[in-house]
């Protein structure tokens, strides 16, 4: 490499670094702008309609110190996690089962696809009627809302698997179980991860909505009971905490995605 080329390379690198700084600065500026707009809006609308961001922050600190916020977060997370696990397990297992039963698949596919259209939240009264007012109706809601995106993605993913890879695996002596685990699972992983990006935030949202309707703990209950007491700051606190929760989950998911797809020839800078 000549010194001229080296200089060019160096200039290119510093330009990229400056661009990175500019992006970060822009992001911070945007957050500041949003917070400013929130503060301005809260001042105009008054404390009954919009909470002041500083008061929300104070409330978060106070509730965290008293332990009540952590308890609500724990309740909501536990509900989301169990419901997610059930919905996700069914959403993955069912397509694998149907793969072995092509005739059953043809028979039930239109019904499953039609049932996607049933508004799940509208079923909550029924769930309460059938399953009582403990965790069960909320778990059904979360489970169903997670099940559909996962099922549809895994189902499509299985159909999309390269038949030639399956034939190759059979010829070299792979059992059906090994083919499912190695070829099919790895082929549909991108579909599955895309579904998780929808299903995970949904699980938290569904848990919160379930808590609006049933029970006396969790972030949803906290938001709803604050509203009942005209405690707008409490409502905003719940929303901020719930949003932060979903953001943390998404960040974790992006990490997992990157790790599982490390082999992929994609441009890393394009990651969502």
């Amino acid at each position, binding site marked *: 490499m000549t010194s001229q080329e080296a200089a060019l390379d160096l200039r290119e690198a510093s330009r990229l670094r400056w661009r990175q700084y500019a992006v970060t600065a822009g992001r911070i500026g945007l957050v500041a702008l949003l917070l400013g707009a929130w503060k301005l809006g809260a001042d105009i609308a008054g404390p009954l309609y919009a909470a002041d961001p500083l008061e929300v922050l104070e409330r978060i600190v106070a509730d965290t110190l008293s332990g009540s916020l952590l308890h609500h977060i724990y309740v909501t997370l536990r509900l989301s996690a169990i419901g997610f696990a059930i919905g996700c397990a069914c959403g993955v297992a069912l397509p694998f089962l149907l793969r072995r039963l092509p005739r059953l698949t043809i028979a039930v596919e239109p019904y499953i696809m039609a049932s996607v259209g049933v508004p799940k939240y509208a079923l909550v009264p029924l769930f309460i009627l059938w399953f009582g007012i403990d965790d069960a109706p909320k778990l059904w809601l979360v489970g169903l809302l997670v099940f559909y995106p996962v099922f549809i993605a895994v189902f499509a993913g299985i159909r999309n698997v*390269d038949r*030639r*890879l399956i*034939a*190759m*695996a*059979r*010829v*070299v*002596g*792979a*059992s059906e179980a*090994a083919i499912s685990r*190695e*070829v099919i699972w*790895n082929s549909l*992983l991108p579909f599955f991860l895309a579904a998780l990006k929808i299903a995970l935030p949904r699980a938290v949202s569904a848990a919160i909505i379930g808590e609006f309707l049933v029970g006396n703990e969790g972030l949803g209950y906290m938001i709803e009971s604050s509203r009942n007491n005209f405690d707008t700051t409490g409502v905003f606190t719940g929303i901020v905490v719930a949003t932060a929760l979903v953001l943390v989950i998404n960040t974790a998911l992006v990490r997992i995605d990157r790790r599982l797809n490390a*082999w992929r*020839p994609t441009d890393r800078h394009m990651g969502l």
Partner: protein
Amino acid sequence: MAAPPLLEVRDLSKRFATRAGRDPSSWVIQGLSFAVSDGEFLTIIGPSGSGKTTLLNMLAQIDTASGGEVRFQSEAAPIDDPKGLNPGLSCKIGYVTQEDNLLPWRTTLQNVLFPLMVQRRLNDETRERAQMLIRAVGLAGFENHYPHELSGGMKKRASLIRTLVYDPPVILMDEPFGALDAQTRAQLQDDLLRLWSLGRKTIIFVTHDIAEAIALGDRTLVLSRPPASIAGEHNNPIPRPRDIAGIMTHPEFAALYQSIRAQVQ
């Protein structure tokens, strides 16, 4: 009387199932018969679309024949019964397909070890064999590369040794070097002959390149236009070991080339 052939195909025929809205498929293969003996290197040549891949798929039991008979070690393959197929005949027939079919999420080494892993034969000895093959085809240093990081020729080599690593007694090869440049191709042909002379397997090698068919085979079959059947059979008098690069200058080459050429339409 000689021992029965290792692999025997008699009066084989194939047509694909019709799909709604399409005319019934015509016969791809009809009345095709040949036999392969143990340790033979058979090359099959035919025009494109002459059912070469279809034939290999039926030999490997990935696909089922519509009629006739396929016998391996005197055991008949199911006819017109996709459910009864035994792909690879319990690892006795290896198949190097036209596409490399490497698992894109596995590295070169993991791809090569894949058959051993699913056959539960992964141990120090087989691992050593895999390493030996990787070195033999010049993939040393690329063990931890993913397929998309390899060149076309490297992928072909990886898929070739993925089959060699578990040592099936018969190997089917479907134009494995078709899409490569002349030099890489000659190199790989050389590698293949060397590996074959070490292990003396039975190889059925399909190609559309007459020179390649002559350079590699003990015997060459010529397929007719579809519906495919055997249009000609040529024993190859060129002695081994052969010099692939100089094969065209061999005195027997021209005559053999001409007579095969006359039958390939």
